[in-house]
C-alpha cells in the first residue's frame, strides 16, 4: 500500500527520465545516503568499518567497473584485478615521484592509467568474443602481476615487493582512522556510481547495450563498434583502477602485486553474477552479499560449535552452490529479485 505511484504524473521528459522516477524510491535513496554518511559513522565500530563497510564499497566499485564491461557492453573479462593493480601502482608512483601530488588526483590518474591499459588489452575484443576474449583477458591478469613483480621500478626497488601506502591527506586533512577512510571511500563510490548510472541511461550506455545485443544492427544504425568496445574497456578499467587504488590505500594499507591475483578477479566476477549482470544496483548487492557471506558463515560456525577450519571450506562450498543456483535459476541475479519484489509491492495487497 505504501509503495504506490498513483497520483505521480510526469509532465516533462526530464521528469520521466529521472534515475528514480518513483517518489518513494527517491526518499528511500536520500534516507540511505543520510544513513551512510551520517548515522553509520556515528555508530559503527572500527571493526565494522575496516572488515565490512570499506571492502564492501571498494568491491562494489570494482564490480561496477566489471559490470559496465561485461553486463552492459557484453565483453567477458577475467582481468579485473589486473586493472585494479594498475590503478593502485600508478597512484603509488604518481604520489611517490611527483612532489605535492594531491591524493585524489593521483587516484584519478591511476584510473586513467588503468583505462589506457584496458584499451590496449581490449583490442583483442575487436576480433574475438565470449570465452576466447575471457582467455585473452586472463593473459592481462598474469602479465600485469608478473610485470609489477619483475620490474623493480614499479615497486620503487622494494625488496619484499610489499610497500606501505602513503598517508592520505586532502587539503591538510589526514585520513587515518577507519571511519575517515570509510567516508572518503563512500564519497568516491557514491559519485562514481551516479556517473555510471548517467552513462548507462544516455547514448554511451545505449551504444554498449546495442553492441552487446546485436552488433550488426548497431553498426548499421551508425554506432562505431571499435570505439564503443574500447570506450567500454576504458571506462570499466578506470572504475577498476580507482577501486584498486582505494583497495591499497584505504583497505590494505599496502601496495603489493599479490593482493591483485586471479582470485580477486573471480570474486568480482561472482559479485557481478550474483548481484545482477547489467545492473548498477546489482553491483552493490553482489558485493554486499559476497563480502558479508564469510562473516555470516563464521558467525554460524561459531554458534554451532564447529571447528573454525570449517568456515573457509564452507565458504567455498556455499559460493560454488550459489553461483550454480543463480546461473540456472536467476541469471540476472539479486537485482532482478529486487525488481520482482518491487513489482509485487506496487500491487500489494491485490493480486493484479
Amino acid at each position, binding site marked *: 500500500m505504501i509503495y504506490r505511484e498513483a497520483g505521480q504524473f510526469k509532465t516533462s521528459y526530464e521528469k520521466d527520465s529521472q534515475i528514480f522516477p518513483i517518489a518513494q524510491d527517491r526518499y528511500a535513496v536520500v534516507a540511505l545516503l543520510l544513513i551512510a554518511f551520517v548515522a553509520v559513522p556515528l555508530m559503527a565500530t572500527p571493526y565494522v568499518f575496516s572488515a565490512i563497510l570499506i571492502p564492501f564499497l571498494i568491491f562494489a566499485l570494482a564490480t561496477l567497473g566489471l559490470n559496465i564491461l561485461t553486463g552492459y557492453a557484453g565483453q567477458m573479462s577475467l582481468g579485473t584485478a589486473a586493472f585494479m593493480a594498475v590503478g593502485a601502482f600508478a597512484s603509488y608512483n604518481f604520489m611517490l615521484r611527483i612532489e605535492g601530488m594531491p591524493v585524489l588526483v593521483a587516484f584519478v590518474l591511476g584510473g586513467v592509467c588503468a583505462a589506457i591499459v584496458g584499451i590496449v588489452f581490449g583490442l583483442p575484443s575487436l576480433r574475438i568474443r565470449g570465452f576466447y576474449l575471457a582467455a585473452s583477458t586472463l593473459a592481462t591478469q598474469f602479465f600485469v602481476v608478473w610485470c609489477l613483480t619483475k620490474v623493480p621500478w614499479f615497486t620503487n626497488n622494494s625488496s619484499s615487493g610489499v610497500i606501505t601506502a602513503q598517508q592520505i591527506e586532502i587539503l591538510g586533512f589526514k585520513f587515518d582512522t577507519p571511519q575517515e577512510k570509510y567516508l572518503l571511500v563512500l564519497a568516491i563510490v557514491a559519485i562514481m556510481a551516479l*556517473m555510471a548510472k548517467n552513462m548507462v541511461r*544516455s547514448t554511451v550506455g545505449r*551504444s554498449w547495450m546495442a553492441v552487446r545485443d546485436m552488433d*550488426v544492427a548497431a553498426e*548499421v544504425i*551508425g*554506432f562505431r563498434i571499435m570505439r564503443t568496445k574500447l*570506450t567500454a574497456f576504458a571506462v570499466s578499467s578506470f572504475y577498476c583502477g580507482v577501486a584498486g587504488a582505494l583497495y591499497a590505500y584505504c583497505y590494505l594499507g599496502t601496495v603489493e602485486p599479490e593482493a591483485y591475483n586471479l582470485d580477486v578477479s573471480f570474486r568480482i566476477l561472482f559479485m557481478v553474477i550474483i548481484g545482477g549482470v547489467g545492473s548498477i544496483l546489482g553491483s552493490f548487492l553482489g558485493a554486499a552479499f559476497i563480502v558479508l557471506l564469510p562473516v555470516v558463515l563464521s558467525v554460524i560456525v561459531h554458534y554451532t560449535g564447529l571447528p573454525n577450519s570449517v568456515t573457509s571450506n564452507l565458504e567455498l562450498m556455499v559460493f560454488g552452490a550459489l553461483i550454480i543456483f543463480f546461473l540456472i535459476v536467476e541469471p540476472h541475479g539479486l537485482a532482478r529479485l529486487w525488481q520482482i519484489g518491487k513489482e509485487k509491492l506496487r500491487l500489494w495487497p491485490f493480486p493484479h
Partner: protein
Amino acid sequence: MSERKIGDVILKVDNISLRFGGVKALTDISFDVREHEIRSIIGPNGAGKSSMLNVINGVYHPQEGTVTFHGEVRRDMDTHQAAEHGIARTFQNIALFSGMSVLDNIMTGRNLKIKSSFVEQALWFGRARREEMENRRVVEEIIDFLQLQHVRKTPVARLPYGIKKRVELARALAAEPKMLLLDEPMAGMNVEEKQDMCRFVLDTNDQFGTTIVLIEHDMGVVMDISDRVVVLDYGKKIGDGAPDEVRNNPDVIKAYLGAH
C-alpha cells in the same frame, strides 16, 4: 494514394557483382531509385534480394560495380557512412536490442544526432542533458506515429512479433533517413498486421517523403504499394518497371511459375 511528387534519381547501382567464393550472389545488377518513390525488390528465395540491400548500406562489399547515392559514386560504402548519409534499414530477422526497452531501442536510432562526449553524459550536464531531452521529444513523435505508446517502457524481448517489427521500423525512422531499406517488413504477419504495416509504410512515405526500398514476398502488397519493381532471380535482374509491366513480363512469370 495522395499526390506524391517523385523526384530525381537518388540512388543508382551500376553493374554490381557480388561473390562469396564460388557462389555468385549478384551478377551485373543495375537499377535506380528515385526520390520519394517506393521501390520494391522481389524474387524467389535466394535470388539475392537481401544481398542487394546489404550492398546498398555497406554490410557487403561487391567485387564489381558502383553505388551512387546523392551523386556520390562509391565502389563500396561502409555501414557508418551509409548511416551518416541517411540510409536506414530494418532486417529480415528482427535485429532489435533485446535487453533494452522500446524507448531505448528507438533512441539508439538517434545516435548520430548526439554530439556530446561520454564524459558529458556521465555528468548529465549541459549539452548531454539537453540533447537527451531534445531527442526524446523526436522519439516520442515517432512513438506516436507508429502507435507504440503502450509499450514504450517494455523490454522488447517481451513483445509480440508484429510489434517488434514496428519497433524496428521506429528505430530506423528515428534517424530521419532519406532512404529506408525494408527487408520483408511483413513476413510472418497476419492480414491485419500486414494492413497496419502497409499503412505505416505508406504514411512514412507520404508524411516524411522518405524514399523506400522494399523487399517483400506478398505480391498483393508489392503490386499495391510499389511505384516500380525490380525482379531478381539467381542473382540476375530479370525484370524492372511498374507493377503492371512486371506482372506481365514472361521472364518473371517463368521464374515464379516455372517454364510453361
